[in-house]
Structure formats: C-alpha cells, structure tokens
C-alpha cells in the first residue's frame, strides 16, 4: 500500500545529513562537555559551535541560546523562569488563547502560585488584535507569550508588531516558535523578541533537543538546578550529539528554508483550493498569514478520529482536533478559540507537509480524501447536502 506521511507538524523524519553529523558524537567524541580533559574539550567545542549556528538562524548571539530537552521544557522555562525572577516587578502574565498546552499549562500552574494570567482572545483567523494586547498590558505585567506560528491552524501572528508594543511597554515578550523555526525567517532583534522557544525535531533534527533564546541581560530563574551547565541556567549533562544534530538541521534549513517554503506553499495552496471543493468544508486559519506547511479543514457532519483512521487505512498519516481523539474528550481549544462550533471542531483535519513531500503524494491525498469524507457522511445521521 502507498504510504504518505502528512503529519510533519507532529514530528519530522531526521535528515540523513543530520544523523551523519551526530554519529561521531556517540561513537568517537563521547566526552562530557564539562570535563577538562581533551575528550571534554572536544565535546565543548562541538557544543559551542552548535550554539553559534542555532543562534545565527534567529540573528541572536551565541551566548543568548540555552539548550534544553524540548520545546515544552523551553516554554516552561520561559514562563516560570521569568515569572519567578521578576515577581517583585509584578505578577501578571498575558498569553493568547491559541497557545500550545506547553504554554497554557505552565500559565495555569503559575496561577496556583499566586500569579495572574490574562488570556488574550483571537479573531476568526486566529490572529490577536494588537490594540487589545496594548489594552491588557498593565503596570504589573511582566511577560507576554504569543505563539509564532500555530501548531494546529498554522496562523502566523504579527510578531514584529507584538514585539514593538512589548518593548515600548517594558514587558518581556516570549514567542513559542516550535513550528515556525526553520520554516519562516525569524529575527529576534528586528522583531524585539526577548525569549524564543525553538526545537530540533520539527525541522528534521533529532527528538529530545530544544532551545530557548533569551535576550542578553534579561532576568530569568533556572528550572533545573544542579551542576551549573548552560551558564548555570539549565543543569544536566549536555546532550552533545543531539545538539550537534540540531545545529546541522539549522545549517541545512538556513540554506534550504526559502526553497522548501516556496515548494510547500505551492502544494499547500493547491490542496486548500482542492479540499475547499468538498461540500460543507471550511478552511481553518488565515489564507496567507500561514505556516508554509499547514493545511487545516473542518468537514461538517463527520468526526475527526474516524477520518484519521480511515485515512490511515489508506496509508495516509494526518491529525485532528476532535474531542474523540483526546483523553479529556474536549475538542481543540484552538479551534474553539477561532469560533468553531463544537461539531466543526469535531470534524477537523490537519495535514502538515514537509520537505520530503512529493507532488504525487499530494495528489494521492487529494484523490482519497473526498471519498473518505463521503463514506463517513453516509454513516452520519446529519443532513447530507452533498448527495
């Protein structure tokens, strides 16, 4: 059976060039980057070269990047680290309603620790309103956290506009760029970003490696205390091989990002055009302010998990924001935040493309999808206008 992976938003395959770059750091240069002997020095060299490379893709200085184990850790680090280090200045934090759980859950937890959290709503495309943001920033606000490119609907915010407001108001601005890093240009200086979450496995690097950019001079508390690795900000023996892999992925994307994006945007927009022809379907997110690789649709009268499993039976990997696909039985908070009704979120489908996506794969999905939707609609008791 044909196998088509269209879930690059969940994770990506590792680029063989990345794997090749990592290998010596398992087998030959396995030293601990904190050791003073030559094995350690070799590891430390690789770590610091990698830091420079990763920093360069966001126009940061090397010393402004701390490596972590994941984007989730980086988000937790940013929120909790800033909140606790700056609690004497204020205890108010602002996040958007379409943040990843890795931001929303730390924000919820901070509430229990006595912090106040404002959740900023978004419009029907998932965009925040800059005026609204300006209005909710208070004297005691210490941090604004807004996702760069949303993981579900792919909407890209006016990051520069947000950064400008936060800088003017003297509030730290964190952005979760897990999905955007390596896909769209990011410049932390021009965009006035104070903290940026990045990771490797969404951009053809290994799983288990993330990073947090923190602007030189900001005040932040570490999450993990111990041997003082990563400038004393993130203790743990450093995952040198993984970080070398991340840096290699960054190096590759730096060269190939623009051509990748161009190709994927063409596929993406072609898919959006074709899928829109399925009756009672709607595009979720913004038509153009959108990650190059993300397609998200709702199909009325059918349920997303059934859709995913039907597609899986045809060899296609995709994902959904349906309530049925979660333990909590709650539909995606992102889809509800953009105003979808419960059953529209129920019938949502996310297709995410990658640099290995081929035209024939796109065509295969477009060929299979209408039939699968039709089949499930036959099972559903709701009205079938498509007859």
């Amino acid at each position, binding site marked *: 059976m044909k196998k088509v992976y269209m879930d690059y938003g969940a994770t990506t395959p590792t680029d063989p060039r990345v794997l090749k770059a990592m290998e010596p750091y398992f087998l030959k240069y396995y030293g601990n980057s904190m050791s003073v002997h030559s094995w350690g020095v070799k590891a430390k060299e690789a770590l610091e070269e990698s830091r420079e490379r990763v920093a360069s893709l966001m126009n940061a200085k090397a010393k402004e990047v701390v490596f972590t184990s994941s984007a989730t850790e980086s988000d937790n680090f940013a929120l909790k680290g800033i909140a606790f280090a700056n609690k004497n200045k204020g205890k108010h934090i602002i996040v958007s309603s379409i943040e990843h759980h890795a931001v929303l859950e730390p924000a919820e937890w901070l509430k229990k620790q006595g912090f106040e959290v404002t959740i900023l709503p978004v419009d029907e495309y998932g965009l925040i309103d800059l005026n609204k943001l300006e209005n909710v920033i208070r004297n005691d606000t210490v941090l604004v956290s807004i996702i760069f490119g949303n993981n579900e609907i792919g909407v890209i915010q006016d990051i520069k506009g947000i950064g400008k407001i936060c800088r003017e108001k003297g509030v730290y601005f964190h952005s979760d760029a897990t999905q955007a890093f390596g896909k769209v240009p990011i410049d932390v200086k021009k965009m006035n970003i104070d903290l940026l979450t990045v990771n490797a496995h969404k951009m053809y690097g290994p799983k288990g490696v993330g990073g947090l950019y923190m602007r030189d001079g900001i005040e932040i508390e570490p999450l993990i205390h111990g041997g003082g690795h990563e400038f004393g900000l993130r203790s743990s023996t450093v995952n040198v091989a993984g970080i070398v892999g991340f840096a290699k992925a960054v190096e590759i994307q730096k060269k190939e990002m623009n051509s990748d994006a161009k190709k994927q945007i063409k596929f993406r927009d072609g898919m959006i055009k074709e899928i829109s022809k399925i009756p009672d379907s709607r595009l979720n997110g913004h038509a153009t302010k959108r990650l190059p690789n993300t397609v998200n649709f709702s199909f009325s009268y059918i349920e997303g998990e059934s859709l995913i499993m039907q597609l899986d*039976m045809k060899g296609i990997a995709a994902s959904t924001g349906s309530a049925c696909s979660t333990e909590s039985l709650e539909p995606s908070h992102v889809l509800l935040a953009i105003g979808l009704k419960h059953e529209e979120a129920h019938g949502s489908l996310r297709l995410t493309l990658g640099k290995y996506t081929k035209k024939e794969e796109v065509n295969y999905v477009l060929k299979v999808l209408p039939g699968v939707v039709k089949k499930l609609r036959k099972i559903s008791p709701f009205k079938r206008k498509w007859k």
Partner: protein
Amino acid sequence: MKPYSLYTNEVMKLFKNPHNMGIIKDPDGIGKVGNPLCGDVMWLYIKVKKRKDGKLIINDIKFQTFGCVAAIATSSKITDLAKGKTLEEALKIDRKDIVKSLGGLPVPKIHCSLLATDALAEAIYDYYTKNKLPIPDSLSKRHERIKKVLESVEERYEHVELEEKV
C-alpha cells in the same frame, strides 16, 4: 491486533465495514441519543415482528452515527447483538457485552458503549409508546435520563439541519 494500536481488530473490522448501517424508511421505533461530553450522536431504527410464539422480536435494525471509530463500531455491534432477539432480551444487552464482544475498548471510549445500549433502549421505548404497550418502570426511568442528556446535545446541534424529520 498490534500491541500498541488504539483499537482491537474487531473494532477496526466493524469500523471498516459497519453492519446494518443506514436508515429504515418506516421504522417501528427510533432511538436518538447523544453524548454531551464528546458530542457524538447515534440514531437507531428498528422493525418489530411478532414471532410464532407470540413474542415481539427485532426483525430489522439499522444505525446512523456521528462519531469516532469506537462509536461506529459499538453501533454496528449492538445491531448484530440485537437482531432477532425479543424486545425483553434486547433490553438486557449490557454495555459490557458490547465491550467484551469487541475485544475491549480504550478506557476513554467506554462511554461509547453506553450510547449504543441507550439508543436501543430508546428505540424500544419509542415502539412501546407508539403501540400503547405497557412500559416497564426501569425503561421509563432510563428514558427520562436519556431524554435529559439528549436535550443538551440537541441544543448544541440546533443549527444543524437533519436529513429527515422522523
């Protein structure tokens, strides 16, 4: 079943090719149920016939379901379990019977099996009501509970046009 698949082979088999899927044009009873948590909706249609011994049996049964893999598989399963049974026997079908004959369901999906048994109970309740037959107390109580839940689900879907007014 692959050890880490979400669903058993039996569930996937029925999801691929559900039994008794569709509408009965002039049914003797209809059961409409909804789950307020996940939003799934299930409709069950029955045709009732008198057997030679005078007992009422489910002669034909069909379903329509708006829901996940588990909801579709449990719908299909209950039609198989109920077909040919007397109404009394059909009412005794327990959600555990469904889960067991499916080879199990993931824990968050167990509620789907309740939707199926509720739909069948509602269809039989509807048949009794339409034919002015005595309704067992336990069934009346069950109907009251299901009706309340359905109201909250219908509210959610009031903007959705239904295919047929039945």
